[in-house]
């Protein structure tokens, strides 16, 4: 089952933003990737609609999508767009949205993205049940929020239909936690997931841990950029389109410069007393993320706290992590020292007065620091985007 090229995926992820009103859906579908009316130049649009059949338009306050048949009988497309100025949401990264709930497959995912996707799901079901016969390859495509929705769509297709799913995202944020990411990688197949991101695009860096990216334990299509700081420019679809131009998927994989999963590297970052260089740097946030994962896993293992189940509750994520870390403070020295190091590092980054002893690290203080750092990460993402 062939995949589509980076050029094609980028073109579709970009053009979907041009669909400003519903009458432009027809223009969008006149691109050669899609099934065309049998007598081009003859049928006016309303006939064309019946002729081609099976286009479905998906609408939600924060997103928009199209289900359509490909130009050959093997392909289907589910293409999603993020927020536009006209519905001026963009509040998907506000604190109210960053919670976790179970996806249609019962896996922990981001509330905001999940609600957007589930509102479109009835139409997607209708598309498959009324317009699709035989096994196909379903190409799920999107940029930014559209990429997050495409990820949930591909996961749904892989689990609930006879079709093969392929996923192509550009600058997408993180959709779910460890459990979801692991499971969706198996369901879709890691080799069918094409996650494209610029090093300095801040959107794929949020939300912070426990949110992660699929494919599990893989770097995706990392695109190096020379600028040290995160920037909104690096998030733009036009920039992605330029970056992938004429390249193959194989060519689109610069190696990320630091494997932040190496334990000794994380430990020495946590222990180092050097000041935080710049909290706007792409590197800083990757360290924070790795360090959070490292310390939480250490505590969870020692205290036998289940991380998997822990996040799906009515508590905020900061509450849950604070709970786990506060447990860690009371554990043996070889565990609690890492919680201390992590909290000092975060407090330093936040410009707070750093605590002297671990007795000062109360549950409330840990919770406060985590909430501040989460806020800062989201602000950093939004701020970088607005710095253009």
């Amino acid at each position, binding site marked *: 089952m062939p995949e589509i090229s980076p050029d094609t995926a980028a073109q579709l992820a970009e053009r979907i933003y041009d669909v400003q009103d519903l009458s432009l859906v027809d*223009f969008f579908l006149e691109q050669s990737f899609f099934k065309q009316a049998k007598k081009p130049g003859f049928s006016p649009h309303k006939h064309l609609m019946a002729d081609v059949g099976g286009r479905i338009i998906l609408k939600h306050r924060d997103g928009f999508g199209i289900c359509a048949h490909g130009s050959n009988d093997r392909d289907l497309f589910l293409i999603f767009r993020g927020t536009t100025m006209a519905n001026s949401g963009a509040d998907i990264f506000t604190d109210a949205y960053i919670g976790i709930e179970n996806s249609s497959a019962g896996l922990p995912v981001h509330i905001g993205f999940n609600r957007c996707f589930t509102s479109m799901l009835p139409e997607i079901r209708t598309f498959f049940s009324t317009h699709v016969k035989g096994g196909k390859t379903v190409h799920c495509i999107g940029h930014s929020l559209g990429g997050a929705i495409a990820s949930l769509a591909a996961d749904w297709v892989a689990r609930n239909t006879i079709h093969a799913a392929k996923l192509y995202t550009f600058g997408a944020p993180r959709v779910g936690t460890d459990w979801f990411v692991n499971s969706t990688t198996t369901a879709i197949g890691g080799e069918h997931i094409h996650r494209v991101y610029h090093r300095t695009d801040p959107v794929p860096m949020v939300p912070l841990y426990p949110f992660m990216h699929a494919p599990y334990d893989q770097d995706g299509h990392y695109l190096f950029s020379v600028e040290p700081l995160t920037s909104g420019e690096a998030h733009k*679809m036009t920039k992605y389109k330029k970056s992938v131009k004429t390249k193959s998927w194989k060519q689109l994989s610069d190696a990320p410069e630091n494997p932040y999963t190496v334990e000794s590297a994380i430990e020495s970052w946590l222990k180092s007393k050097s000041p935080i260089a710049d909290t706007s740097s792409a590197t800083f946030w990757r360290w924070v993320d790795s360090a959070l994962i490292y310390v939480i896993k250490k505590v969870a293992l020692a205290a036998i706290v289940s991380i998997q189940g822990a996040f799906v509750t009515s508590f905020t994520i900061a509450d849950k992590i604070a709970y786990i870390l506060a447990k860690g403070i009371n554990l043996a020295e070889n565990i609690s020292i890492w919680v201390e190091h992590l909290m000092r590092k975060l407090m330093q980054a936040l410009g707070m007065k750093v605590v002297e002893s671990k007795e000062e690290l109360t549950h409330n203080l840990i919770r406060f620091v985590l909430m501040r750092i989460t806020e800062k990460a989201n602000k950093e993402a939004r701020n970088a985007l607005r710095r253009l």
Partner: protein
Amino acid sequence: MSIFFKGKKVEAVLFSPLEGKITYQGKPAAGATIKLWIAWKDKDGETELYYSDDQGNFSIPKKTVVYKDNPLAQLSVGQEVTVEYQGKEILIWKAGKSSSHLFGELGGQPVGLTCELANEEMTAYLDHALVKTLCKWQRLKTLED
């Protein structure tokens, strides 16, 4: 949160200048009313009127807006140009544009543009944006030219 981070104001081209000649059955369509509709921040949009001269020549100037940028909310502009001539209303241009660039619709400025109202089919130009138009041009002048 937003009080700390004021979005930077940027200029976006909502409609790139379009000028040329309107004809009907090969003859200049003099005194035609040209209605430009653009929508980007709401569904209603805004409408402006222009008129062709004795030779059928018309010119729609560049439409820009300065707005607070937030790339999480992508700019997406709907455009329509309709011509009223001899009691008929004919759509000559319909487009969706998501770039803020000048001439982002076609990738360049059409030179030697003519719009024949008797044409029945609009042609689609889908490489740079989603555009369909009755109008034809001799060439596109890109910004590098």
